[in-house]
Each structure stands twice: as C-alpha cells, then as structure tokens.
C-alpha cells in the first residue's frame, strides 16, 4: 500500500478517490497509523492489483509476456507493499 503512489504514479488523493476514502485516511493507512477493516482491504487490494496490471499491460503494449504473467507480477508487487 505504501508503494502504491510511486508504483502507480498516482497522487495519494487520486488513489484515495478511487478507493472512496479521504486523502488523510489513505495517508494514515500508508503510514500504518490506521488500517481499514478486513472487509474493506480486499476490494482495495484488488483495485491496486487491477490498476497495476493495467499499467504493466500499457507499458508492455501487450507485446511481452502473457496476461497471467503480468497479473502474478502485479500481485507480487502489491503483496510486497502490504
């Protein structure tokens, strides 16, 4: 989560908007001052994976690697940031 703004090249506010939380809330999450309930974490992480996957696909122009390889790479990156 902490690496999401850098990896996704999005501002904290953009990510907060996408996750329907306030920027201070997202800031507290990435600074480990608070965490959402588990029920809210799963869709948030799924969104991060999806965004990351899209970004990777756009970067590679669909030319390199299969979708599933990109997806697992995205999942690993997100897992590292959790």
């Amino acid at each position, binding site marked *: 989560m902490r690496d999401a703004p850098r990896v996704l090249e999005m501002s904290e506010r953009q990510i907060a908007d996408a996750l*329907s*939380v306030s920027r201070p809330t997202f800031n507290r999450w990435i600074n480990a001052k608070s965490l*959402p*309930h588990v029920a*809210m974490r799963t869709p948030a992480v799924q969104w991060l994976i999806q965004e990351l996957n899209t970004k990777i696909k756009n970067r590679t122009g669909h030319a390199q690697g299969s979708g599933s390889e990109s997806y697992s790479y995205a999942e690993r990156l997100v897992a590292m940031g959790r």
Partner: protein
Amino acid sequence: MASEPHPALVFFKFPIQAASLAFSFHCSIAKSDPHLRLRSEDDIRTFAEEGELFGVRSVASNILALCYAALDESSNEYEVGGLAVLPEVRQLGVASVLARFAIAHIIANERPWRSGYRIVAYVHEDNQNPRNLVDRLGFQHSGRSALKGGTSTMKQNPQGEVVGDKFEFPRAAVKQLCNWFKREFRSLLRDGVTPAIIELKPGGLQSLIEAVCQEAAEL
C-alpha cells in the same frame, strides 16, 4: 390510486469537482436555518478535498441532501454535521440513511476507537428536529458546549452565545448500526418504494456492511 414512486436516490461521497455545488446547496439551507452552522466555501471545499463530504442526488444529479464527517485532529473527533435535506424529500428517511452511511464509512475505513478517536455530533440547544434521529442512530448525550466560528447566522442565547448539545456515538452502538444495515435497510427509503442506492467504490455496500459488522463482532 397509488402515488407515483420517487425515482432512485443515490447516496455518494462528494468528488472534489462538485465542491462548489455542495457549497451552494449548503448555503441555500444553512443561511435560512438558525440551527445550522454556516460553513465557509473554504470549509466545504476542504471537506470535499479531504473526502469528508457525503451527499444524496437524484437520478437527474440534483443534490437533495448533504452532510460531512470531518476529522478534527486537535480534539480527536470525527464530527458528523451539516446534515441538510431538501424539504421535498424530508419524509423519506433520507437523513437517517445518509448519516448511517457517513458513520459506517468512518468505522469501516478508520476504525476510530483503535486510534483513540470519537464520533460526535452537535445539535443546537433549541433545535428539536434532529434529536429523535440522533437518538435512533445510537448517539448519547455527552454534554453542552458553546460553538465557535461560523455562527453568525445561528440563534444566540441571551448571553450572545451559540450553545449546542454534544452527542457521542459510542462503540457499543456499532451493533445497532450493523443490525440496521442487515435487517432494516433493504435499499429502499421509508416509503418502501424509493430505491436508495449507496454508491461506493471499489467494494460496494456489501463490504461496508461486512466491515461494520466485523467491528460489532469485536465488541
């Protein structure tokens, strides 16, 4: 003959781009309501920028209701306030759904009690209208205080002060909130025919309810 049902109302978190619309709506009600604190445009813009502004819109995107759930770090309080509903939708229980949506959002995303935060609401001492709602939501009276700032349009007491009752949403009330979402809220408003759509990315209403009920289960 049955009256025509209202079209769906959408409960949503205000995007930054709609801050000026929110301010216009807030002013249209707060300027003529001596019990409502008139917030500045900067206040409303900040609430929207910080994702602390919640609203209700019609399918035609007209704003019908508004409230904020703003964190004041100096007092460790989330204040649920500025609750304003247009007269034409006042009998539908819009305020009740909107306030619960805002409170649930705080609980699900912040887990306020773990960080030592409280959820509070203020009601002008002469304002009887929201007291039933505040009570039904599970708030408990916790004191009185003189309000500061933005009170020029509010009713003052003989001493020139604007005094409000302070209510706190105790952690124990989360069970009640969970039960309301699970057993009473059927995505319909009080008339039983107007759909109430809670727009929430990315997990939707179900995630919000699960989170609230997880908090309740931890009590």
